[in-house]
Every structure is written in structure tokens, then in C-alpha cells.
């Protein structure tokens, strides 16, 4: 018997019980749509996390002083301007785009409309590039302003809100008292959702005018910008070599500093979101499994109902294989149609979510993945074959005399 005829017979059989076929398909449909949608939601969430992390800069390397004491006693040496110079001056490959010192403090800002305690960052002119910050209004301080210890400050959006009524342009050129000195606001940073409560000034000014400043040449953190994401591992190795040299350390286990990249963080998040996506997909897979059991149930009913028909077909010369094929095709058509509609439904819901998801506030838009669509559809077909196999086998084994006599 040709496959085409088997399909025609299957279609006729399914149409004979339209409501029943539809309800059975619904089970597969919901399962397939759920797999597609939940995987897309998982992917969307992970993509958003990645893009947020990438916004921090995937080519950045942070260097910190090691905490506590170094093994085999000894005091850990702080990072200093000498280390910054050593990194800047090294001719070794790969090249660094910028090497930016960061010194952190905390102080009270006094402005026109109020006072506000915020974190102070003393840094160089490379700070916006090194930390992926953009300037909303005004401009960042220059290299010469760093050299001359200029009393200028660039505010984050939070202090602007607290002491200038939230209008960045209104803050430009205004005086702010920080500690005992008066600083001029030369620019305002755009918010990035990570560090908005901040005031950035030249590192030299921070050392000179703030309480914990002074002649100290210490630096709390170094931000090294590699030429690109691919250059990060080599750049990290170079940072270690240069700093071990500068700190006169021969044994890598004796290192008194830590080198970290955002890429490490990205990888860790990647692992977490992958687990999350697999978890969602397994829930959907359970729905699909339940749908499959529905298919099996209905196929068993169908075989019982059509016992006489099966008997007749066998009496007319249908072989076991032919009967087996007929019912397998029927269950596969059932689950295949359910799967196709499920794909349309799942993809449709994903597209709707992408378009209108933003209306529901903070919501990572679903991201369709073609493999998950193909997989869900293939699995729906396999479910038809797998759960149809037992009923079909039962039909094929019926003895024609008994089947013909069945009422």
C-alpha cells in the first residue's frame, strides 16, 4: 500500500471524529507551543543579561589589591601610580588602549538646593572610555586638568537629582562644595543603571583636597582596556607579568593583586541562564509528554472502535504491516498537525511578546531559536510514532475472524 493512500485513510479516520481529533491535537499543540515559547523566554532573559554585561565592556580588565596577607607572610603592596606607569610604558604585545587608575572615597556634596552624600571617584581623563560611560551634557575633564589638579567634577544623575532638581543642564557650571573646597560642575553622566550615584573628579584633585588624599600615590583599582574581547586573555597575562615585575614577585602564587575580566562574569552568568533555560524547557517537555499520552489514549479508543473495520481490511488481504502502518500514519498525522499548529502558535506568541512585551514593564523580550522550533516539531512527530506504536501493534495483531464478529 502506498504512503499516499495511508495518508488519505488517516485523514478520513481523523475527520470522522473531528472534535476528538482536535482535542488530542490540542495537547500536542500546547506542548510544542510551550517548548518554543519557554525556550525563547529563557533565551531572551539570557540575551538581556549578556547585553547588560556587555554594556559594562567585555574588553575591560580590573586589577585590585589582594585582600588579607599574602601566603608565606609578607605585606601585600598596594597598587600605586608606579604600577599605572609600568603598564602604560610596557612595549610588550598586546597593546592596551587605556590604563585608568580609580581611587574611591565618599563625601558630602553641598549644592544650590541641598546636600547629598555620594561616592567620589578620582580618575583620569580615560574614565568614560574605560568604564563605558557617556556624557549627557557638558564634557569630561581633560589630561591637563588632571595634571593641574583642577577642582572640577562630573556628576552622576543621582546627585544631580538630589541637589540640582534633576535638570542636568541646570547643574552645568554650578559650584559644589565637597569637603572644604569648591568644585565646578563641568559635565553630567548619562545613567547606566549600575553606578549612577557618583561624582568623578581628577585623581590628583581627589588626593589633594579630600580627607584621605594627600601625597599618597595609592590607587584602589586599575581598569585596563584591551583592544578587543579576543585580546582579553593575552592582555590579562601581560598585566600579571608587568605587575609582578613592578612588585618584584617571581612566584605567581605569591601575587599580591587580583586580575579579573568582565568576560569571567559573563561566563558565569551564561552558565546560570543555560540552567534556567533547560529548566523551562523541561517543564514544557512534560506538557509535550502528557500530550503524547493523550495521543496514545485516543489511538487505543480508535483501534477498539474500528475493530470490525480492521477485521474487514485483514479479511480482504491487509497484512499486519499494512495495518500497523495505517495506524502509525494516523497517529503521526494527528501529532504532526498538532505540532505544526503548535509551532505557528509558539512562534506567533513569541513575535507578539517581542512587539508588545515592553508594555508589561520590565520584561525581557522572548528570543526565538530555530533549533528549538525544529526540535519541538520533530519531537511531536516522534511522539506520534512512539505513542502510536502500541495501539497500532494491537490493531495489527487482531485476528480477522474475531475482529469481524466484534460488535
Amino acid at each position, binding site marked *: *500500500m502506498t504512503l499516499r*493512500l495511508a495518508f488519505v485513510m488517516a485523514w*478520513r479516520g481523523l475527520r*470522522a471524529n473531528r472534535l476528538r481529533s482536535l482535542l488530542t491535537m490540542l495537547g500536542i499543540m500546547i506542548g510544542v507551543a510551550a517548548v518554543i515559547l519557554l525556550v525563547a523566554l529563557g533565551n531572551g532573559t539570557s540575551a538581556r543579561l549578556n547585553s547588560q554585561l556587555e554594556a559594562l565592556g567585555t574588553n575591560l580588565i580590573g586589577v585590585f589589591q589582594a585582600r588579607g596577607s599574602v601566603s608565606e607572610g609578607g605585606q601585600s603592596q598596594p597598587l600605586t601610580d608606579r604600577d599605572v606607569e609600568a603598564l602604560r610604558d610596557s612595549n610588550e604585545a598586546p597593546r592596551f588602549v587605556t590604563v585608568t587608575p580609580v581611587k574611591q572615597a565618599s563625601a558630602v556634596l553641598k549644592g544650590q538646593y541641598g546636600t547629598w552624600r555620594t561616592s567620589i571617584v578620582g580618575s583620569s581623563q580615560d574614565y568614560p572610555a574605560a568604564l563605558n560611560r557617556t556624557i549627557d551634557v557638558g564634557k569630561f575633564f581633560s589630561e591637563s586638568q588632571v595634571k593641574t589638579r583642577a577642582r572640577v567634577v562630573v556628576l552622576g544623575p543621582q546627585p544631580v537629582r538630589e541637589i540640582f532638581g534633576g535638570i542636568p543642564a541646570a547643574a552645568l557650571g554650578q559650584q559644589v562644595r565637597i569637603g572644604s573646597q569648591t568644585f565646578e560642575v563641568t559635565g553630567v553622566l548619562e545613567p547606566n543603571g549600575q553606578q549612577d550615584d557618583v561624582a568623578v573628579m581628577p585623581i590628583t584633585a581627589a588626593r589633594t583636597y579630600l580627607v584621605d588624599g594627600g601625597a599618597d600615590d595609592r590607587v584602589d583599582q586599575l581598569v585596563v582596556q584591551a583592544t578587543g574581547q579576543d585580546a582579553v586573555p593575552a592582555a590579562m597575562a601581560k598585566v600579571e607579568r608587568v605587575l609582578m615585575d613592578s612588585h618584584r614577585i617571581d612566584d605567581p602564587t605569591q601575587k599580591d593583586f587580583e586580575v579579573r575580566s568582565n568576560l569571567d562574569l559573563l561566563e558565569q552568568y551564561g552558565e546560570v541562564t543555560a540552567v534556567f533555560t533547560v529548566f523551562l524547557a523541561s517543564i514544557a517537555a512534560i506538557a509535550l509528554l502528557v500530550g503524547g499520552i493523550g495521543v496514545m489514549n485516543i489511538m487505543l479508543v480508535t483501534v477498539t472502535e474500528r475493530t*470490525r*473495520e480492521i477485521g*474487514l*481490511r*485483514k*479479511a*480482504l*488481504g*491487509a*497484512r*499486519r*504491516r*499494512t495495518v500497523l502502518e495505517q495506524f502509525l500514519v494516523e497517529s503521526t498525522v494527528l501529532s504532526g498537525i498538532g505540532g505544526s499548529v503548535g509551532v505557528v502558535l509558539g512562534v506567533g506568541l513569541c513575535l507578539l511578546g517581542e512587539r508588545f512585551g515592553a508594555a508589561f514593564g520590565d520584561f525581557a523580550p522572548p528570543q526565538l531559536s530555530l533549533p528549538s522550533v525544529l526540535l519541538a516539531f520533530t519531537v511531536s512527530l516522534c511522539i506520534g510514532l512512539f505513542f502510536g506504536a502500541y495501539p497500532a501493534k494491537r490493531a495489527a495483531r487482531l485476528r*480477522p*475472524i474475531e475482529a*469481524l464478529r466484534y460488535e
Partner: protein
Amino acid sequence: MIKLEGVGKSYRAGEAEVRALRDVELTVDDGDFVAIMGPSGSGKSTMMNILGCLDVPSEGRYLLDGIDVSGMSDDELAAIRNGKIGLVFQSYNLLPRTTALANVELPLVYGNQRARRSRAMRALEEVGLADRASHLPNQLSGGQQQRVAIARALVTRPTMILADEPTGNLDTEASCEIAEMLRRLSAAGRTVVLITHEEEIAAYARRVVRLRDGRIVSDTRRGLPDDVTQEIQRAGADA
């Protein structure tokens, strides 16, 4: 040619063993028209199952065109039923929601035959229902449905047409029509075996075999079919 040699069939019904057929010897020549009769429990159905290759005998041999089918597997029997036997049932057994033509085509589908449509159409013409080819079974009368079933039995050009109580669900007029059709087929050279308990229908056959308690108790040949026909028509008019 069909030949039963010492055929017996026993079933297990709970504790007891039922011997539905014992030591049956029967030869049916090509083109003959045989009626098998007997009261219920005489072994008629078992005879039908064995002749129709729906079941195998537990003793003896069954030769169909010289082939011993006694020890065949399910699938081998299916192939024999498909090619050599045309079955006609009491309740027609047409597939619902399937046109007359598609019903007639079905054995050709299972036999992997070519030119199915035209052959099915010719079989429908033979039973005089060419104009009903696209009708569904529920749009046909009982007599017409049984004629479609006969066309389905004819379509593979089988060695034997085996009709099991084909008139059991029909009124007298339709019954005569069906019996007459079977007689015509046999006159055209086909072997027809008819299982019935109605004397009027059996009267169309040239030879009547009577069963009782699983044995053949009589085997007689009738006279000319035309005389019989008149006799039956008279009987029908009386009733």
C-alpha cells in the same frame, strides 16, 4: 479447484473441547455453485472460516488451486485471501464514508495491483452499479450495498467467491436479486460457495451440501437452475 481432505477443527471453550468440524471431505470444481446448509451449531461458520482462509484446520489438508494452505502464517493467509478468495458477508461490511468505487478498489490496494480505478469500475459494471460509483454506502439500499460487496469480491478475479449468509439482512426481492447474481457469476465460469440457512436461496445453487454436528450429512445436485428459479419465485409469491 478446492479440496478439503479429512479436515477437522476443534476449539477449546473453557474446560470442554468443541469439535466444530470432523473429517470433512469436499471437492468443488471450477465454475460450480455450491450451497452449504445446516442449522446453527452445525459447523457452517467454521466451514466458512476455513474455506475463506480466515482460520486454519486443526486436522487434515485444505488445497486451494493445488496449494496447501493448512500451515500458512497470518501474512501468507492474507495474501491468499487477497488473491484467491472473494468474501461476501451478511452485513456487507463496506467501509463507511468511503465511496462504492473506493470500497471496490480496496482489495487491489492491498494486493499492490495496477490500474485499480478502471478494474474497480469494471467490477461495478458487472454488478450493474456503474452509475453509483461515487455514492457512499449510506446512500445505497441494502441490496445495492451487497452488490457493491460482490463487486469488491470479484475485483481480484479470485478462484472462489465465498458468500456467508449474503441475503440474511435483505428482503425477499433483494435476496432473489443477489442469489440470481451469484448464479449468473457461476454461469459465467466463477466458482461460488454460498453459506445459507434459507432453502429458497440454496435452491439457486447447483449443488447443496448439508452439515450437521460438524459432518457432511448430504451432498446433492439439483436439476436445471431455470426450474428452480420458477419454483422459488412461486414460493416468494406465496409468502
